[in-house]
């Protein structure tokens, strides 16, 4: 079943080509192709998961060349859950995009390319290969962000492109440093050769700094997050859902890969300053992201800044270098993807139902769109970290890790993050349930609200369809909300699944 590893990457790219070719003849074939492709990819992802559960880590040598010369794909405890996440979210977003979408074949081609790129980043065991897949991911993501109708989306896409390219270039430079220091690009081989080259070596330190900084740009940690709010909020709704759920997530996964597989905890024992810097950068991001989120009036922007904060938490989990914290990092990575994707999807549903996009327009939403309001509330509270949802479980493990390692300031920030997150979510919940709309919605469901810059050009488009949210769009949000709660009970299962891989890392 190991062939599933390569198929997980090949299938989406194949689908992308198919969608492009089919687009020459049939205008509306994109969705069908994308849906089938994502279904197939989900199959391969589950097969990978199954194999890893049964037989442990799988390595797949491409073209029959043995690493370190050949390129290999790796499915271990770390990458298997992420690939399943990628496949699942991809399928869900395709379902969501059927009604919400951009509908063209070009969209689905780019979309499937993005899926393939993400799968590649997840599964690759080679650092240069990772760069290539990161760039494929980036390219598709830039184009998708810019595919929105609004004038801002092109600017947001370009900004994303420039910063993303700088980040990826730094990553490439770091890979170059590592290559000079060791003469290899295979991750496992690198970890041995780097140790041999000496962790104190400037080349190795430079490689670490450049690789991690490059990835953190893609993760959008404060203060290199500046591309992210614009990209999230100006992209079409389906794209927002997808990139908020997966793009930064996979970049954060890559951080974990680089930290654990390439540099290994011994590197940090030799260079404690590297760990300290990373952990504190993450902590600053947690706080700054929350503060910026509180200041936002547009809901998608607020959610975007919230991601800055949440990814601070994930990176902190990885960088604490304790097994519990790493488990927490992975759980929060998955949990955040489900929650944030679900929230963006919910925002899209609400916009389609009522035209509301700013926090002020959410006033009294509970009476206009009770189901959507309830879903936003459930997902929001999960993100705040109300148990037993998944948002709590990740936070708990990370906190345990922080306490175990005795990094008290970080522990304090992580505990405080509950209240920080509450600071921006309580507003929404309160508005939805306990406030009257400032302006009564007109009878056809459109909202004549004149609040600042709330409704942009694309908002105008949504207004014409009061029944704009299809059942499957709502269903996607419902699934996300249910997953947010049920995944909360999967904490122990994920932990035991990760254990063999992490024991290898932490000894």
């Amino acid at each position: 079943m190991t062939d599933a590893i390569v198929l997980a990457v090949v299938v989406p790219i194949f689908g992308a080509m198919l969608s492009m070719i089919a687009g020459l003849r049939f205008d509306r074939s994109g969705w069908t192709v994308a849906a089938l492709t994502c279904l197939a990819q989900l199959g391969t992802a589950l097969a990978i998961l199954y194999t890893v559960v049964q037989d442990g880590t799988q390595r797949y040598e491409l073209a029959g060349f043995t690493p370190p010369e050949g390129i290999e794909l790796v499915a271990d405890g770390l990458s298997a859950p992420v690939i399943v996440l990628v496949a699942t979210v991809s399928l869900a977003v395709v379902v969501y995009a059927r009604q919400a979408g951009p509908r063209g074949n070009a969209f689905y081609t780019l979309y499937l390319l993005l899926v393939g790129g993400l799968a590649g980043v997840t599964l690759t065991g080679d650092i240069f290969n990772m760069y290539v897949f990161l760039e494929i991911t980036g390219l598709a993501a830039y184009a998708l962000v810019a595919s929105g109708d609004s004038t801002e989306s092109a600017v947001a896409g370009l900004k994303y492109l420039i910063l993303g390219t700088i980040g990826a270039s730094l990553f490439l430079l770091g890979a170059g440093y590592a290559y000079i220091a060791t003469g290899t690009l295979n991750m496992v081989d690198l970890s041995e050769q780097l140790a041999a080259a000496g962790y104190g070596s400037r080349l190795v330190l430079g490689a670490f700094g450049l690789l991690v900084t490059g990835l953190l740009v893609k993760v959008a940690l404060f203060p290199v997050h500046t591309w992210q709010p614009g990209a999230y909020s100006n992209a079409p709704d389906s794209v927002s859902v997808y990139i908020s759920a997966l793009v930064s997530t996979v970049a954060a996964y890559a951080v974990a890969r680089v930290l654990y597989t390439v540099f290994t905890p011994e590197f940090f024992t030799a260079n404690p300053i590297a760990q300290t810097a990373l952990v504190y950068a993450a902590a600053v991001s947690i706080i700054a992201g929350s503060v910026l989120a509180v200041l936002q009036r547009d809901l998608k922007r607020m959610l975007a800044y919230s991601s800055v904060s949440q990814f601070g938490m994930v990176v902190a989990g990885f960088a604490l270098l304790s097994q519990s914290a790493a488990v927490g990092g992975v759980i929060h990575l998955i949990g955040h993807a489900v929650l944030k994707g679900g929230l963006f999807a919910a925002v899209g549903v609400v916009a389609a139902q009522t035209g509301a996009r700013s926090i002020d327009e959410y006033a009294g939403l509970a009476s206009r769109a009770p189901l959507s309001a309830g879903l936003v509330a459930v997902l929001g509270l999960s993100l705040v970290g109300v148990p037993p949802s998944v948002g709590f479980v990740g936070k708990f493990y990370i906190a345990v890790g922080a306490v175990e390692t005795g990094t008290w300031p970080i522990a304090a920030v992580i505990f405080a993050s509950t209240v920080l997150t509450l600071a921006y979510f309580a507003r929404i919940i309160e508005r939805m349930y306990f406030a009257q709309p400032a302006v009564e919605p007109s009878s056809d469901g459109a909202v004549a609200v004149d609040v600042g810059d709330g409704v942009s050009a694309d908002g105008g488009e949504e207004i014409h369809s009061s029944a704009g949210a299809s059942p499957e769009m709502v269903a996607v949000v419902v699934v996300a909300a249910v997953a947010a709660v049920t995944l909360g009970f999967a904490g122990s299962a994920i932990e035991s699944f990760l254990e063999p891989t992490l024991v290898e890392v932490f000894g």
Partner: protein
Amino acid sequence: MSNHNPETERVERPYTESSVIMTTVRVVAPFVFTYGLFVMFHGASSSGGGFQGGAIVAAMVLMLAFAFGIEPTQRWFKNTAIVLLATGGVLAFLFIGVGPLLLDGTFLEYSAYGFKKAPKYGIEGVELGIGAIVASVISGLFFAIARGFEYTEGQQ
């Protein structure tokens, strides 16, 4: 060039045919194309490969466009053809790569095909695919950028 808006401040330089250029291009083009293919095929055994070969083939397309005008060239090298060539290249790569999986090999493990010099032909096939992608994408980008953009309202 067709949908150029007269309101632009750019100076309109109408395309003029030059028999010297046209004749030269007519003669050179097949050789350039052949050279491109040569570079692609040589990816397996010496320096060369799909990227370089594809770029050379694309250069030929560009050359034709400069000599005969972009419009006529595009009529000849249609968008559909570009898309088919690009996707066909990717698909060729994928099929050649996935083939060994059916024969109990790993992805891109050409020797699994079993016939003599399979790795060589495999690599050449892949290089051809890559060449097709590069050539078509570069031409496509060229045409896309040459097309320029349409003015919308709110123009200053």
